[in-house]
């Protein structure tokens, strides 16, 4: 149901950037405490929230701190006493915050954090890239990645549901600048829907309590640490269905479904598919339609919405249908491949009839990736299926080595 058809809630339509959509969702989630430290392209999220506190008197406490490390420490302290907590960061800020991000993950505190994706220096860079959003997937966090501003709002709400249910904190990644600073209309559900969807009275076995004092994360001997890590591993591994269920439940309440862990686009009869995350998915979908029209290639798009839990079950089902998957990574694992391509290969290796998986790396540091680039990927995948093109370990999109040599000569 598009928001235009949804006349009943038209009064709740706002035209906002994705950063404001995050702030609105945090307001609607009735978050108690936030830690704030500015970094582009995240800064306006916390600015919007402080504006709501000033102008609407929302019952939220925002602590302005001296670093991202402390911003997460604030969220951790708040969550540890059972409050609903939020923070946001990006890029270098996440790197500085990293120690506390890991502590929150392994303390099982249901914090939600927005990361507006941005590449990391050197060289100093502001452009969009997904590497930062993906890092916390190794740090005991769930990681979700919406496509547009409406889905950003909805995913923040869903993230609190997921975190409160599993006691695993959740990162919601959104494309820096491409979404964070771009306005789109979003529909905001009635507050009562959100209140019922994410009630605050869920069990909080981790919450500190002066009647029965205990501490978090005290030292253990080596004979107990592995068991804590195993517990986090299994909880995240077992959450694939939960992400689907939360999406379905939300769809019943709002009419908006995103496919749970994966949005499947034109996959029913697809022979080749490109796997992509976030805002570029729109371009990939256009490309799939175009190569169907132009060349009759049965092309589709696998839009990865959940990186943790990694949707091994759903991906395995899709892999039974398609003959080649091109994984487009706006990130990289140096010397190996795209981070997601690496995980896709791990997930599918045990299948008897597994498809070709080709890793594509592009768009790093905000380099433009066009619909034509995705068309090219889909055409190449078809050629691989037909045996007319070799599969390579990694293929680079938009790599211009002549330009960089010219730049350095002129320095």
């Amino acid at each position: 149901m598009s928001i235009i058809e949804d006349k009943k809630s038209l009064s709740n339509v706002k035209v906002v950037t994705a950063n404001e959509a995050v702030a609105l969702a945090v307001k609607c989630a009735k978050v108690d405490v936030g830690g704030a430290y500015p970094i582009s392209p995240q800064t306006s999220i916390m600015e919007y929230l402080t504006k709501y506190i000033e102008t609407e008197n929302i019952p939220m406490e925002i602590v302005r701190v001296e670093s991202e490390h402390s911003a997460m420490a604030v969220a951790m302290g708040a969550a540890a006493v059972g409050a609903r907590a939020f923070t946001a960061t990006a890029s270098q800020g996440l790197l500085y915050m990293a120690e506390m991000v890991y502590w929150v993950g392994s303390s099982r505190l249901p914090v939600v954090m927005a990361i507006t994706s941005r590449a990391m220096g050197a060289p100093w860079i502001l452009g969009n890239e997904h590497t930062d959003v993906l890092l916390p997937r190794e740090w005991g966090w769930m990681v979700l990645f919406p496509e547009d501003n409406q889905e950003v709002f909805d995913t923040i709400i869903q993230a609190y549901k997921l975190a409160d249910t599993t006691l695993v904190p959740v990162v919601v990644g959104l494309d820096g600048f491409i979404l964070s600073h771009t306005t789109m209309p979003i529909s905001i559900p009635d507050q009562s829907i959100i209140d019922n969807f994410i009630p605050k009275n869920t069990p909080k076995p981790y919450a500190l309590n002066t009647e029965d004092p205990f501490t978090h994360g005290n030292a253990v001997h080596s004979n107990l640490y592995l068991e804590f890590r195993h517990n986090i591993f299994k909880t995240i591994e077992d959450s694939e269905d939960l992400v689907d269920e939360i999406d379905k439940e939300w769809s019943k309440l709002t009419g908006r479904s995103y496919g749970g862990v994966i949005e499947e686009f034109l996959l029913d009869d697809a022979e080749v598919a490109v796997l992509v995350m976030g805002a570029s998915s729109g371009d990939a979908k256009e490309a799939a339609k175009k190569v169907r029209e132009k060349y009759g290639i049965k092309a589709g798009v696998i839009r990865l919405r959940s990186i943790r839990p990694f949707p091994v079950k759903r991906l395995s089902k899709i892999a039974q249908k398609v003959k080649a998957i091109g994984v487009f990574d706006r990130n990289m694992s140096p010397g190996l491949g795209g981070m997601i391509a690496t995980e896709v290969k791990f997930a599918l290796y045990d299948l008897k009839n597994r498809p070709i998986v080709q890793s594509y790396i592009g768009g790093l540091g905000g380099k433009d990736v066009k619909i034509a680039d995705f068309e090219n990927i889909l055409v190449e995948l078809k050629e691989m299926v037909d045996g007319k093109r070799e599969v390579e370990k990694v293929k680079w999109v938009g790599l211009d080595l002549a330009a960089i040599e010219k730049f350095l000569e002129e320095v």
Partner: protein
Amino acid sequence: MKVLIPKSKPAKGAVGKTGLWRTSKPVVNHNKCIKCVICWAFCPETTILRFEDNSVDIDYEYCKGCGVCANECPVNAIEMVED
């Protein structure tokens, strides 16, 4: 799946008998001790045993042998000796 929260309650020796970490141990010379209890106040691991008359001794089960007590004693009544 049952969630394992890494929580713990205050308890003596929550991470085991830390006295095993020691390479040298503090020894109190009771003839020199003036019962000022500065060592008791400074010990980072609360392993100085303080008695009713303010005389002190060392809890060797948990003393890590850091030497802070010997360093702080104003009358050099605590000596670190090889353990």
